[in-house]
């Protein structure tokens, strides 16, 4: 890998997308895993070179869900692109909305009202719980525990009902706006949230009773897919996968945003870096998210949920229908030629989502459309490290390792 290397062999049309297609000797088999496979969460493909059951080498092939979100970011205005963020990590959509909106707000230098911040934290933690519930259900299902799948998905349904109360849609919520939120929480939201909070921990306890000391679960997850802290640093792994390896870093504590510096919560850190520790870290995160939401409910006070400067953010609906200024501002913001005009510059904002560090890098040229919009997805770095983690383990183990990474194809491919 010296700088004197000439231009590498560029792939010509018609050749295969993966590096190797021939086995090295008679003992080896090339096994194609995906993209349509029940254990491959989403459209993920990896080509494995195996000796018997043991994986010798793997090369992932991605891009099946590539839609060109970043290119769309250059064609649409800042507010229009919020709907695209729902489609990235589609298990925790409001968390993506939030990360992007915070990046635009930093570009504008805009602050949001406190009530909006507390509600955003509630939504971020609900998204984290929803993401972890799907992770839990599918991971356990891959390793044979069907009951856990049903328990986890039932809780996930309740969360989507909550998000529907708040924003009108279960998945594609697009709940945040530049400068605040789409709308304030309806009256039914808080009672439904408190009801969810009352029953949620029982599910976590049930699942822990089923899995934590379960002989089969422990055999299939302990010592599997070990990736230590130094490897996590080299491969760019963040989030629960890194914390399972002992990396004590959570952006909510290390670089606090929203109101996380006023909330009392702990960040679970594992030790061995295997699938079991990542499982324990995520289970504890479920309990901590529950604790965070409790504190947010207590701290929620009445107030505005959008930045007062109506030239940047859509005015509230009652002003649009009730006052001429509101109507004019609404008209000007929606129609061509008006909207947030950030000054020229570039920003990078990172949030701690359920999978790790989700970052948005925005370049503005002074117009109402981003000049360059880049999303740094945690799943991309995790899936890149997956063959490293799976090396030397069996094909059955690789399913568990992939489940523990929670790779989401929408975020991976954009």
């Amino acid at each position, binding site marked *: 890998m010296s700088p004197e290397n000439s231009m*590498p062999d560029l792939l010509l049309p018609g050749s*295969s997308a993966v590096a190797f297609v021939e086995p090295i000797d008679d003992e080896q088999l090339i096994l194609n895993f995906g993209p349509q496979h029940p254990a491959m969460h989403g459209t993920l493909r990896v080509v494995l070179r195996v000796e018997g059951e043991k994986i010798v080498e793997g090369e992932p092939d991605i891009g099946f869900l*590539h839609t060109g979100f970043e290119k769309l970011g250059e064609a649409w205005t800042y507010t229009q692109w919020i709907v695209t963020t729902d489609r990235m990590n589609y298990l925790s959509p409001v968390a993506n909305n939030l990360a992007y909106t915070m990046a635009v707000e930093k570009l504008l230098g805009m602050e949001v009202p406190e009530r909006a911040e507390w509600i955003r934290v509630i939504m971020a933690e609900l998204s984290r719980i929803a993401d972890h519930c799907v992770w839990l259900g599918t991971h356990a299902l891959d390793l044979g525990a069907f009951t856990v799948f049903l328990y986890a998905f039932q809780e996930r349904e309740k969360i989507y009902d909550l998000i529907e109360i708040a924003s009108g849609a279960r998945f594609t919520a697009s709940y945040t706006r530049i400068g605040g939120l789409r709308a304030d929480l309806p009256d039914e939201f808080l009672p439904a949230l408190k009801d969810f909070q009352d029953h949620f921990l029982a599910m976590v306890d049930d699942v822990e009773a089923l899995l934590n000391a379960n002989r089969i679960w422990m055999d299939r997850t302990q010592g599997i897919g070990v990736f230590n802290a130094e490897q996590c*640093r080299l491969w760019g792994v963040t989030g629960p996968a890194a914390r399972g390896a002992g990396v004590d870093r959570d952006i909510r504590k290390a670089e606090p945003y929203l109101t996380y510096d006023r909330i009392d919560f702990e960040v679970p850190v594992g030790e061995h870096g295997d699938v079991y520790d990542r499982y324990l870290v995520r289970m504890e995160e479920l309990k901590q998210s529950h604790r965070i939401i409790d504190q947010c409910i207590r701290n929620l006070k009445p107030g505005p949920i959008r930045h007062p400067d109506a030239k940047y953010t859509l005015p509230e609906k009652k002003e649009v229908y009730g006052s001429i200024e509101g109507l004019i501002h609404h008209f000007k913001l929606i129609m061509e030629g008006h909207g947030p005009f950030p000054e020229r510059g*570039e920003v990078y904002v990172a949030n701690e989502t359920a999978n790790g560090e989700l*970052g948005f890098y925005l370049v503005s040229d002074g117009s109402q459309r981003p*000049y360059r919009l880049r999303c740094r997805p945690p799943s991309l770095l995790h899936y890149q*490290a997956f063959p490293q983690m799976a090396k030397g383990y069996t094909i059955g183990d690789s399913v568990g390792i992939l489940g523990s990474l929670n790779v989401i194809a929408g975020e991976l491919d954009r």
Partner: protein
Amino acid sequence: MEYKIPEPVLRAAERLKERYPESVQEIRTHRDEVTVEVDATRVHTLIQSLRDDLELPFDFLVDITAVDYLDYDDGMRYGLKYHLLSMKHNLRIRVSARVDDPEPRVRSLADLWPGANWLEREVYDMFGIVFEGHPNLKRLLNPEYIQGYPLRRDYPTAGLGERDIFDQPALEPEEVLRKNPVPLSGELN
């Protein structure tokens, strides 16, 4: 809203400038972020120096991406952006390097961080910037047979008609555009 520039990051950037005065072109700050504009031929050396800095080592590679400055300013066309993080001190820095047509190339960071592999592949896929010394430089997200580099500013948002010719061998972009002209980026609305 008040943004405070973290002093240790500015000092680290200044130390880098002292060590490599002819390669560090500019140190910019915006909001609470520090960007160091460097000479693209020395990117590998400078980033390794930031990684190995004794007071503030930026040991975690967060992201590698690129910007096509075709419609932005009159400098070199592509800007490579390297986002680094110091895990112990929780401080970030951005290194920016410009490369130009006709053959944009820069040295790969895959030997410093294995995680840079796919990040650079994606930049190659989307912009056509070649990373010298990269172990496996080929397209990542797009099918391997497409022509052109999608995130460049002169590549139309609606594409070059690849979806209509899935089963056929790839055509030259000019032929495809002649057959079905598409609106350019920004004209969709």
